[in-house]
């Protein structure tokens, strides 16, 4: 076993969707994780998460959800451009995440399990895709607008996923901040109640003193204790449901 990884930009699926991929170089077998980037785009901090999964024994991939609209643009320009167009339609997100998940399943050394994780808008999208395709585990980090879409005046294309939740097909871990206002703790409670009504497995933890974006090390909202504990919970959850094992040097 080696602790080496290989990380690079790839183009996956029939449509050659741009994605950032990282994997251990050993023979496996490794579980797979699709990382869904946040509204600020396919940026450096998200790619660092992809590498972190590889270092910890996972095949990981993050599709650039803004690639169709803004190919080759910098993450901030792409994000602003997509925002100005009302965001990405949910069905397009599902399609690109499915393509990324299929790319993981086709990789050498894959153990047959695929999880998904997203932060901020990606947290909502992790829930969304887990209702739309076969997955083995999903992690929602402070995903907003899961139950109610933004006001129509925002012009955004995202819709409520409340009616899709009966189709949720895998266990979900939710990590939130007590000080977040979107999603606020009351909305998280409501989500938990709805998932319980549908008999879904939903583990959750909310951190005192943390608000939105507490996992982002390059932003003022970073909260060290919450982020460190959150990563432990993420790997414990994925290890349990996807069969992950740490690499050995």
């Amino acid at each position, binding site marked *: 076993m080696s602790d080496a990884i290989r990380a690079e930009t790839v183009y996956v699926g029939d449509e050659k969707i741009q994605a950032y991929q990282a994997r251990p170089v050993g023979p496996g077998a490794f579980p797979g994780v699709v990382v869904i980037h946040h*509204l*600020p785009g396919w940026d450096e901090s998200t790619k660092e998460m992809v590498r972190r999964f590889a270092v910890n024994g996972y095949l990981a991939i993050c599709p650039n959800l803004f690639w169709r*609209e*803004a190919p080759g*643009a*910098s993450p*901030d*320009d*792409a*994000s*602003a*451009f997509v*925002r*100005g*167009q009302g*965001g990405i339609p949910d069905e397009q997100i599902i399609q690109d995440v499915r393509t990324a998940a299929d790319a993981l399943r086709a990789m050498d050394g894959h153990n047959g399990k695929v999880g998904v994780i997203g932060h*901020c*808008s990606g947290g909502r999208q992790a829930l969304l895709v887990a209702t739309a395709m076969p997955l083995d585990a999903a992690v929602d980090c402070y995903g*907003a*607008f899961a139950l109610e879409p*933004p*006001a129509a*005046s*925002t*012009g*955004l294309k995202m819709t409520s996923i409340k009616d899709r939740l009966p189709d949720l097909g895998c266990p979900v871990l939710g990590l939130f901040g007590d000080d*977040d*206002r*979107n999603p606020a703790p009351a909305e998280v409670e409501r989500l938990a109640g709805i998932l319980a009504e549908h008999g879904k497995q939903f583990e959750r933890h909310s951190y005192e003193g943390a*608000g*939105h*974006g507490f996992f982002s090390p390059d*932003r*003022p*909202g970073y909260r060290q204790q919450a982020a460190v504990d959150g990563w432990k919970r993420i790997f414990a959850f994925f290890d349990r449901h996807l069969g992950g094992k740490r690499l050995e040097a």
Partner: protein
Amino acid sequence: MCTYDTETVEIEGSAKGPDGWFGVTRAAVYVDHPHHAPFGHTLNIDFADPARGPAARVAVELTEEAARALVAAIQAALDHAPAGLASRSAPV
């Protein structure tokens, strides 16, 4: 929190980006997380020409105080100048 709220306005004028001056046709105004300014949230403005692609954009990220001061300064500058001087229909 992410607001996702975006006010969009059609505009007419020019802005200077990394590749020089270009005409701008749209401004997007929103309060959300900044990319660069060291604050949790800022008032962000993108002056853009979407027809030229995502990179045809001049962006600013301002604190609420700065944004309100800017609004007042714009209003004052327009009020101090002869009415209609900067109008698109003003004679040159």
